């Protein structure tokens, strides 16, 4: 009983936080802070209109393609690289500096350079997602492998476990939680990458909705497109976090 009321209480606080935020937004829009700042209600109505006329659905279909391709590629190759770096000193020395530099580099400055090599199509956008997501995924997998508790490895060796058994039965299961966290953070970076690419390379999908509605001064629709991508990113990450908690309690 106490548990139930606890959950209700928490939900109440969360709803109140949203209500306060949206209320302040509405006030700021009606005041207004700027002639170009729409109220929450006009943004919400614009969002509903974009859902109804199908423009939001079409935009997400275009935006999610490079995002999914990029994250799947990073998931396979990135985790592979990370595990390789964690298990082999040679691979580590060869590739670690690249990922450290990529993690530190200001990506918004690098993304326009992609167009010089890969043009303006889907490949450039996939690469933008990979450039942002890969370092996090690789580094987390690498650290997950490296941080395996030494006593567990010693135990495996004292039971005459082979290297293969050591990796498959001790190291990988131990690193799985951190690898999954890397994937989740990689997806967050992927959302940043795809939106930057759609704004800086060629306007497609959500980037197109943002730039087009900004250029024709339809600010409620522009804010609705931005708010929708924030909501989609936040909800996807929240879902992954819940899955993570269930898989690795």
């Amino acid at each position, binding site marked *: 009983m106490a548990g139930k009321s606890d959950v209700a209480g928490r939900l109440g606080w969360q709803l109140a936080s949203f209500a306060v935020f949206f209320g302040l937004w509405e006030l700021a829009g009606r005041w207004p802070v700027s002639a170009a700042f729409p109220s929450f209600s006009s943004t919400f109505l614009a969002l509903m209109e974009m859902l109804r006329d199908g423009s939001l659905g079409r935009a997400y279909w275009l935006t999610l393609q490079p995002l999914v391709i990029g994250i799947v590629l990073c998931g396979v190759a990135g985790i592979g690289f990370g595990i390789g770096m964690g298990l082999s000193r040679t691979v580590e020395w060869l590739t670690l500096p690249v990922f450290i530099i990529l993690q530190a580099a200001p990506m918004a400055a690098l993304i326009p350079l992609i167009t010089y090599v890969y043009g303006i199509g889907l490949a450039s956008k996939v690469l933008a997602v990979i450039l942002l997501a890969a370092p996090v995924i690789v580094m987390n997998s690498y650290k997950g492998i490296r941080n395996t508790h030494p006593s567990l490895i010693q135990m495996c060796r004292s039971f005459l476990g082979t290297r293969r058994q050591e990796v498959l039965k001790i190291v990988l299961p131990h690193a799985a939680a951190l690898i999954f966290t890397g994937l989740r953070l990689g997806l967050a970076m992927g959302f940043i990458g795809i939106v930057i690419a759609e704004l800086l390379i060629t306007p497609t999908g959500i980037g197109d909705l943002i730039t087009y509605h*900004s250029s024709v001064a339809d*600010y409620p629709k522009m804010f609705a497109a931005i708010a929708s991508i924030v909501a989609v990113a936040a909800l996807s990450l929240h879902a992954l976090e819940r899955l993570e908690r269930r898989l690795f309690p």
Partner: protein
Amino acid sequence: MFKYLAAALIALLSSSAPAQSTLKYALGDVVSIDELPLLVAVERAKKRGVNVEVTAFKSEEIATQAVINGQADIGQGTPYAAVEKVNVPIRFFYQLSSLQFYPIVNKEFYKSWKDLDGQEIVVHARGSGTEAIMNLMAKQQRIKYKNVSYVPGSQVRAVGLLKGNIKASILDASNKNYVMKEAPGKFIILPLGRVKASDEALFARKEFLEKNQAAVAVLVEELIRVNRQINKDPGSIVAERKKLGLLKDLPAKLEAEILPYFKEGVETGIFPNDGGGERAAKNDLEFFHLSGALKSANTKVENFWTFAPLKAALAKLK
């Protein structure tokens, strides 16, 4: 007694208060050779006591935002949609230049407008002037494009054409010349009827224009003078640039393009001698309605343009 003195003092102060002598000018583009007429006019206005601070923003939208929010006094561009929608009264008052674009196709694939039926074309952005021109031509030629893609920047589209990623697009004068020079015989310019809409126009908040008539009139006067001088002799802008020391760090390659750019502009009549006025306003409303930027069908000229600054300047110049 004191009341009269105070009233006299206020009257004296308000009559002698100079009009704002610094105009903050927001440009949504990189300052390059096409901005030379503006830069010359700015220098000349400065000599007449009107300082114009030109700030180059990343895009026209940001420059427009600066004017809407009062951070800039005058903006350059054609944000008709913003003027229609935003509830701050903004008015255009001067046409700097009219549109000059060239539909260009790769000869290997297309040779005429009819060949573009059912094909993919690339323009600057959704709702842009370039898209409107291409749509206008499709209507005239009774063709339908398969798909319209958006690649912002003539320069980027020019590289795309040269690399073969783009087969049909539309470019500005300098990039058209660049493409034709880099790959002679590879591309064809498709014929285009004269498009009379504005490429660049000046706009400001209505209230600002009313309060700063004198300073705005000086700038408009000088802009008209420069355009008239260029129309008489395109070479004058090259001499003027040297004399005033403008765009000193321009690369030699671009420097050589100044004269051809202005010669071509004068031939196609893109620099108005009279600041556009009612003719420009009418053409713009028609064109931007067609492009989809303006939604309302019964747009009134007085909701977009004010002709007082231009009339005042023209009266002085005659």
